[in-house]
């Protein structure tokens, strides 16, 4: 069966869900962050496939923006995680307990 | 003491002159080697280095003009040897060698472990009989460790006959000179 728009979209939807699974299910900040990257990528895939099948290149431009934003976010985020690790020797969500009541 | 760095001007700080200099130097060497064949490397097994005077290689035993071993088993060299490469077996109570009854104590066995020897030359320094010399050999090879322990025969063979230095003649001359030493006045 020739893959059409919906095939690509289902892949992207599943990828999004996988990323969400990583965010919700895992406790390691780095892996959570990777899950977030997966979700962003799922968005990219959806954009590119729409862009292809709708014959509208604007979606690809949006992907370009997304990738850039993701890169910036990752840079800041990893710097933050490293700062956290320096302070607390952990990269685990459960250890973020300073701010509770 | 603090040595201030030489302040660089703008042009120097771009490091381009230094880089160009580097290119020049390396190019000179390259060209010398390739085009003028001025490489410093010898084609070793074919060409060999001519040892300079005074080169100190492996220590070998020498025999005197009569072809006799000069060593008298005093064991000073064995004692002084830093890596303990020398092993001397003195003649012991069994008596003197039958071939040289006049000699004092010719070693029954004299071994140098060339794997250990560091060519320091202390044995030569210390030898009262001038029986051991550092010679020009530097490339000692063997197929087994055992081969690298040179025994007396091998050492003597490699060492050859020493004609230049005759210690006892010297001593004799010195003794003679001492006889006219003004003793009586004392």
């Amino acid at each position, binding site marked *: 069966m020739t893959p059409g728009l919906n095939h690509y979209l289902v892949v992207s939807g599943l990828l999004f869900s996988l990323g969400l699974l990583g965010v919700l299910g895992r406790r390691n900040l780095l892996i959570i962050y990777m899950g977030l990257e997966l979700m962003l990528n799922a968005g990219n895939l959806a954009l590119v496939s729409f862009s292809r099948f709708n014959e509208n290149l604007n979606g690809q431009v949006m992907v370009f923006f997304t990738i850039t934003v993701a890169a910036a976010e990752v840079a800041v985020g990893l710097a933050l995680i490293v700062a956290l690790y320096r302070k607390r020797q952990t990269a685990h969500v459960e250890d973020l307990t300073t701010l509770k009541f | 003491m603090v040595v201030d760095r030489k302040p660089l001007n703008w042009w120097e700080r771009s490091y381009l002159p230094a*880089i160009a200099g580097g290119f020049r130097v390396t190019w000179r060497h390259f060209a010398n080697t390739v085009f003028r064949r001025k490489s410093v*490397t010898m084609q070793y097994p074919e060409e060999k280095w001519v040892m300079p005077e005074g080169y100190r290689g492996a220590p070998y035993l020498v025999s005197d003009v009569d072809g006799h071993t000069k060593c008298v088993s005093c064991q000073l060299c064995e004692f002084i040897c830093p890596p303990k490469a020398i092993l001397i077996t003195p003649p012991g109570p069994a008596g003197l060698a039958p071939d040289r009854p006049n000699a004092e104590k010719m070693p029954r066995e004299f071994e140098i472990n060339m794997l250990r020897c560091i060519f320091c030359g202390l044995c030569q320094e210390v030898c009262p009989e001038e029986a051991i010399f550092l010679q020009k050999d530097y490339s000692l090879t063997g197929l087994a460790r055992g081969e690298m322990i040179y025994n007396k025969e091998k050492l003597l063979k490699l060492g050859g006959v020493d004609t230049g230095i005759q210690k006892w003649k010297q001593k004799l001359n010195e003794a003679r000179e001492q006889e006219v030493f003004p003793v009586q006045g004392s």
Partner: protein
Amino acid sequence: MFESVQYWDPAAQFVLFSALKILVVFGATLTFVSLAVVAERRVSAWIQDRVGPNRVGIPFTNIRFLGLGQMLADGLKFLLKEDFTPNYVRTVYFWLAPAITLIPAFLTLAVIPFGSTLGNPNNRMVIANLNVGILYTFGIVSLGVYGIVLAGYASNSKYPFLGGIRSSAQMISYEIAMGLSVIPIFLLVGSLNLGDVVGYQSGGLHTWLVWKQPLAFFIFLIAAFAETNRLPFDMPESESELIGGYHTEYSSMKFALFFLGEYANMIASCSMMVTLFFGGWTPPWGAEAATTLWAGLGHVACFLAKVISMMLLFIWVRWMLPRFRYDQLMDLGWRRFIPMALFNILVTAFVVALWQR
């Protein structure tokens, strides 16, 4: 035999030629790598007033053609040595790393036009004629760092680790300078396709982009040194500090893969430089795409000659400059070359805009 091919289905022809090209390029690169190793040793020797390895020729004869048999000997040695895996390493990554290092280096070569044609205009002498050739190259090159990082990580030992960290930082940093430095080229050429870049320079020596973009070339060259971890930027390996860096724990064939990777990277960089700045396969007097087999081969030879010259430059530089300190390296990359490259882009863009108006 060749004649019969011409009557095949075009697609089949395409596949056949592509496969052939891939085979040839792969084989040639491997040969080139071993040659480069020998060449490096010999040139090094010459620069240091030595002779270098000149004895190993054809075995069991006295024929020693410049010692080129050394490359076989080296290869044999790598193959036959004991392959040693320390028991504290992370095994999977330890095995993965050398392979990851090697693959990108070869993949990079896919987009480089190493000749015009072999007479048939349909078969261009490039494995993949991509519109985004240069981006592809940079993408693949950027993957190369994984091998080194993983090697450092997998070795589970401090020197390889430091080497891996240094290397990844160095490669990421210089990738930026490198990428920025080539942008003016594409501003001038107007296409990301490397074939077009070569076409732009096909008018002869004076059309080579190195004259128009000396600064870009300069930056690219130095970034290439850093990307290939060559002296004076071989911090990741730096024998005197890190006893070999990321490949300290490697031996035998796995080490050989790193070695191959390094030289293949070097070849790739040189090919890139030749393509971007020195007219690619065009001879210095300029040329159109070849129409005969021999002209085509001549172009390939021309390309190879240029690449070899660039490689010699690499080798030459190795003996010229001392190793930089790590902070100096980073300083150079971030605070000198990136601004310079940006400046270059601005100026070029300005000029191009003026010129087009």
